[in-house]
């Protein structure tokens, strides 16, 4: 079991009222799963994804990642766990504008203190695999949206994560570019065994996954 969420609650207090973002979430994710999270705006999809990715905290409940109790871990261990095992892909790509393609992909390795020759080898592999060797010295502004998202995925995968989290990865792309990214996710899931959790609005994209999770008003309404 890669992930286990038990009775997760998250809320905000506003004017004396408690407003729930997530209510009593129970969820198990196996190693190698490909889950699509769906639901209307404000249903808590992104919040759930951020909690899974340890970017956000929750107010109640237990979270086990790879058997470790995330809710009890100190920041330092959580950060290490996160750096080792999780990669993030965003709707808006979020590349660093001042860095080249090569340097963007390299960034997570710098924070993992990987040695320079090893970084070089890993980044070259990744460039090869994504067929973007020719673009390695370009800056994000010089790329199309699809290419930028490709770099975003490459960056997320560079540290060989067990879990890839994607928040509407195709939201800013046209349908052809979107389909390419989805094919890539599927291949990663099936060939490399990367667990994928994606948030999406599109039924079509959701269908790439092996399981669909539907949220409404902070509750899981179907698995």
């Amino acid at each position: 079991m890669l992930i286990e969420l038990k009775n997760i609650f998250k809320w905000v207090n506003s004017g004396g009222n408690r407003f729930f973002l997530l209510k009593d979430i129970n969820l198990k994710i196996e190693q190698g799963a490909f889950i699509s999270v769906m639901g209307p705006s404000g249903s808590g999809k992104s919040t759930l994804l951020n909690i899974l990715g340890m970017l956000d905290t929750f107010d109640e409940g237990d979270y086990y990642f790879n058997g470790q109790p995330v809710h009890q871990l100190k920041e330092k261990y959580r950060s290490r766990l996160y750096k080792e095992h999780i990669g993030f892909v965003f709707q808006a790509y979020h590349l660093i504008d001042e860095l080249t393609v090569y340097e963007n992909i390299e960034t997570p390795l710098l924070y993992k203190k990987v040695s320079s020759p090893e970084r070089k080898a890993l980044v070259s592999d990744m460039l090869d695999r994504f067929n973007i060797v020719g673009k390695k010295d370009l800056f994000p502004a010089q790329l199309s949206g699809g290419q930028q998202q490709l770099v975003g995925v490459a960056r997320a995968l560079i540290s060989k994560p067990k879990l890839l989290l994607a928040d509407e990865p195709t939201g800013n792309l046209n349908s052809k570019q979107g389909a390419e990214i989805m094919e890539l996710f599927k291949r990663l899931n099936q060939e490399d065994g990367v667990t994928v959790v994606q948030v999406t609005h599109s039924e079509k994209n959701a269908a790439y996954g092996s399981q669909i999770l539907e949220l409404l008003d902070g509750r899981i309404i179907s698995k």
Partner: protein
Amino acid sequence: MIKNYLKIAWRNLWKNKSVSAIHIIGLVAGMTCCLLMLLYIQHELSYDKFQEKGDRIVRVIMEYGNGDTTNKGNFTGTKVLSTFKNNFPEVANGVRMYKNKNIVKIEDHVYKEDRFLYADAAFFDIFSFPLLKGAANDVLNAPHKVVLSAATAQRYFGDKNPVGRTIQVGANQTNYTVTGVAADCPPNSQIRFDMLASFSSLPAAKVEETYWSANYTTYLLLKNQNSIASLQPKIAPFMKRELASEDDGNGSYITYELEPYTRVHLYSPYDGFEPNSTVQYLYISGCVALLILTIACFTYINLSTARSLERAKEVGIRKVAGAQRRQLFWQFISESTLVSAISLFLSVLLLLILLPAFNDLTGKTLLFSEMFQPEILAAMLGILLSISFLAGSYPAFVLSGFKSIKVLKGAFHRSSSGNWVKGSLIVFQFGISVFLMIATLIMQNQLHYIRNKELGYDREHVLTFPLDNRTMAKIALIKKEFKQNPNILAVSRSAELPTRIKGGYTMWTNRMTPEQYIMTAGNVVDDEFVAACGLQLIAGSGLSKQDIRDVSHADYDKNYFHFIINQSAATALGWSPEEAIGKKMTFSYRNGEVKGVIKDFHFASMHTPIKPLVLFPDTWSRHLIVKTSGNDLAETIAFLEDKWHNIIPYRPFEYQFMDESFAKLYASEMRMGKTLGIFSAMTILLACLGLFGLSAYTIKQRSREIGIRRVLGASATGITRLCSIQFVKLVFLSFLIASPLAWWIMNVWLRGFVYHINIQWWPIVATGVAAVAITVITVSFQSVKAALANPVKSLRTE
């Protein structure tokens, strides 16, 4: 990792060129000021340090007086050296010195030498001035020998060997033989000479040595540096025994004080052969340097937090990519280090360009090569690190604290916590600016007041020339020839110029005993002095030619003096101006009577009140005063030059306007005024840069609010006002804090002048208005942009 940090820092700098330029300009301005101050301080501290025996050399200060008054200064009689050497075992050696402006004639050229010094033969043993030609022990061991500095030798003789050549010194054209060439004196020395002649050449060295006629400076070389403590207490009793035979019963005494040579420049109230500085100036300079550096840091902080919004996304991504806060913190520190390093490099270049102007302003000779002393290099490293850390850490702290999901969602850190920090930085910076602006204005006012105050004498279109004994003998001819030109109204001579007449005389009336004397200033004048200087007689009449003949007897006792006294002198002697006329009085043992009373005029700086003054006739003088009408001045000067070459061919035609001598009295105030002006401009620039940054930041933070207000129908002016008002409030607050402080401190400064302005309301109000205007203009760069921007855009960014 560090490479990556620097890379992104560099690309960020390059991408936002205008913002980076503002950043760097701010730091360069601050650093350059700071470096200049450091260089200046280092230069002042290095004075005389090159003297190898410096810790054993002392300067002798003479103190003399009677029961009532004492006088103290850097002068001694000729006898001090020999007596001290013979009577005190602590004294190893010594040298007497004398500085004189002189004219030097070589073949047909006449040069004016301001740094013409005389010294005993031991000079080169005691001081570390290397001799390039000649042997230390015989270059000055006989009368009429002279050592030239390398630059002077070059100027006189080119590349030819000067040793053995003869030069003619003074109006009497005495022959001196060049015996050696010394390396040029370093600028950081209290003794600097272009020519150094043997002390035995002086007339005073040819007569019997005396403690009196104290016109010379004596330096002693002690056996070891601790001897000063054992020697000092022996001097007073020794001198009492020495002078026992001369005791006149009215308590006259002489004693001497020893001053360590290396403390003269910064700690002594008495100048060396070059003007002293005081250690207080160094403290002030140090404070100014620190202040400017602080302000530069604040500007940097305000500018970089302003840019933090642009960096927020990057911070978010880096955090998602696994960066810890510490790592981000160091990234931003390395960025500020890069910016500081670039700025430091540029400010060193700027310093190279500005140094001549700075030297001009301070009257110093700082060399660019002094930059590379270890102390300065260490200080530069210190500046670099302090700016990198002090200025870099606050933005680094703020930036690294951004929450990744929030900034990636586009919702920026909108808390107003931190804002008071930035606000108080602005208050501090503008407080300093307001303070300096008010101080500058008041100082300019006072200087303007001094320059235009009715001084009681006429200093416009008055030319002055130095007058020596040889020229003095031709005074009648000079007067006659000069006055042929109708534009020359009067030609006079005097011992001192009316700009600055010193004290040192005594006077008493026949109702008083000589012991009841009153101290007074005095000046030797002739019959035309009152006319040439435009002095106003209020009673009696001026001197006549006969009055001068009355004091020209070879037997001095036969002389009978007619005095012109000022109103203060009349009052001090108990007379009204009218009563004074014809009254008998004695002026430093010269008997005579009062012939005229003049209105008080400012014959000293305005720091001191007008004191009693006696103008008396005598046969010697040091200055020639030529009053012109001011019409066709160029032609008049050409006329004078022509006559001068005919009558006085042995002296160069060098004149000075009396205005210039007057300006010299206030040179230090003028310098301070200029320096303050520059610093206040600098702080205003820096404060504006900081304000510019902060306004950009807050307005960007409020872009959504502004968008909504626009959509709801707010006008562009309304928005601009909304954005500006908070900064105007901050600046007004700084004005409220700084202006009373400035008022108080400037009042203290003004009290140093006996004649001063009263601080008026307008410089303070003007400063306040200017500060607010500057604020509005600076902020408007941002606020107008925000007000005119399409509100749809700013709302869409949510």
